[in-house]
């Protein structure tokens, strides 16, 4: 086959019935997700035998345990976002009648990835990537972490994906593409409120955020256990670390003093094209981790480099991601 270009490739995702049992993109329920780039890869630490046998170069290599890992970066589209968030360390919930359906995701304390039936249970996914017409199937996939960021005005998501195994798809089927529903510069709003379990975010829209990045790291790892197989046994989760990074116009010392005083606040980020196409990230109990203000140079604006961290809150959730979409995700109803 002659050389190919990335633009001709594609990525498909489908929820699995059994964790780690690969489903090809010919199965009912497959969705084809437009992406910007991906780096999903077979990950194996080959074993090189250090036998001493009158040589200073190893003489044998054996296969070892393996798993799948890599990043997928894409322009957030509410038609597809729930599929990925279902396959992450969240407790999901689905409501609504299609105008729209509302999918809510709050942090869970699961120690490992698993499939739970129904619309309030996490899932695992089979992901197929086609590169130059050649299919790579990845089974048992979940998010090890992710970040939402506004880049050139567009909401972008970068997902770190971990999987259990790699398969060669039995068939590739034929992708079906919907019109893009991405969020541009006029879609985003940020609100602040007092920290609490259900702040109203009723105040005015904030206007001095220069950039936005909400990242969640589940500290996930592929776990290999001794058995007559080399693929990973499961994906474990560690401490969940949600952070918000931005840059603020430095206008007074109020927030600097809040940083020093460890004052808490709530932050809402919302991208909305309309009521049927909306993503809301509510961070209910945020504390400044860093607040750096300096004179960068003669012509530089004086900005505060800010990192905030989402904290647990009694009786509530540290954060919540809500997706409004017309997609009625099969298998979770």
């Amino acid at each position: 086959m002659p050389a190919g270009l990335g633009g001709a490739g594609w990525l498909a995702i489908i929820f699995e019935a059994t964790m780690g049992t690969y489903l090809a993109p010919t199965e009912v329920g497959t969705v084809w997700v437009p992406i910007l780039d991906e780096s999903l890869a077979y990950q194996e630490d080959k074993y090189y035998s250090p036998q001493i046998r009158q040589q200073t170069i190893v003489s044998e290599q054996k296969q070892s345990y393996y798993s799948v890992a890599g990043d997928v970066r894409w322009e957030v589209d509410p038609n597809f976002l729930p599929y990925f968030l279902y396959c992450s360390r969240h407790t999901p919930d689905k409501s609504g009648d299609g105008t729209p359906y509302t999918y809510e995701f709050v942090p869970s304390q699961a120690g490992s990835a698993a499939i739970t039936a129904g619309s309030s249970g996490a899932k695992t996914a089979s992901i197929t990537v086609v590169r130059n017409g050649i299919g790579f199937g990845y089974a048992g996939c979940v998010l090890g972490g992710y970040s939402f960021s506004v880049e050139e005005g567009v909401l972008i998501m970068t997902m770190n994906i971990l999987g259990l195994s790699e398969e060669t798809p039995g068939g590739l089927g034929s992708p079906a593409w919907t019109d893009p529903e991405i969020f541009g510069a006029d879609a985003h709003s940020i609100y602040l409120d007092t920290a609490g379990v259900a702040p109203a975010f009723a105040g005015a829209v904030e206007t001095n955020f220069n950039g936005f990045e909400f990242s969640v790291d589940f500290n996930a790892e592929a776990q290999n256990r001794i058995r007559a197989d080399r693929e990973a046994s499961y994906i474990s989760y560690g401490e969940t670390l949600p952070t918000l990074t931005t840059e603020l116009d430095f206008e007074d010392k109020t927030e600097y003093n809040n940083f020093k005083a460890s004052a808490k606040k709530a932050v809402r980020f919302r991208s909305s094209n309309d009521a049927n196409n909306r993503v809301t990230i509510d961070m209910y109990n945020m504390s400044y981790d860093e607040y750096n203000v300096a004179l960068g140079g003669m012509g530089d604006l004086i900005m505060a480099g800010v990192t905030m961290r989402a904290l647990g809150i009694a009786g509530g959730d540290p954060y919540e991601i809500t997706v409004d979409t017309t997609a009625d995700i099969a298998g979770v109803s």
Partner: protein
Amino acid sequence: MAYKLTFSHPDFPFGKRFGLTGLGSVENGKAMIVNEELARRFQIRMGKPLTEHFEGNGMVKIEVIKGGGDT
């Protein structure tokens, strides 16, 4: 020979438009007619006849319509 292609995705609203590479667009839950010329060009582009390409695809149903037809 023409074909009737029906695309049905359970997750998306009836009537939502999907693009199928090499064939044009079809509304979810509805059918499109693929005429002989389009089927011929599809085979050249995809390397397989229409029926073979979608064989085993749970969301695409292909029916043969004798006598051709318009897209």
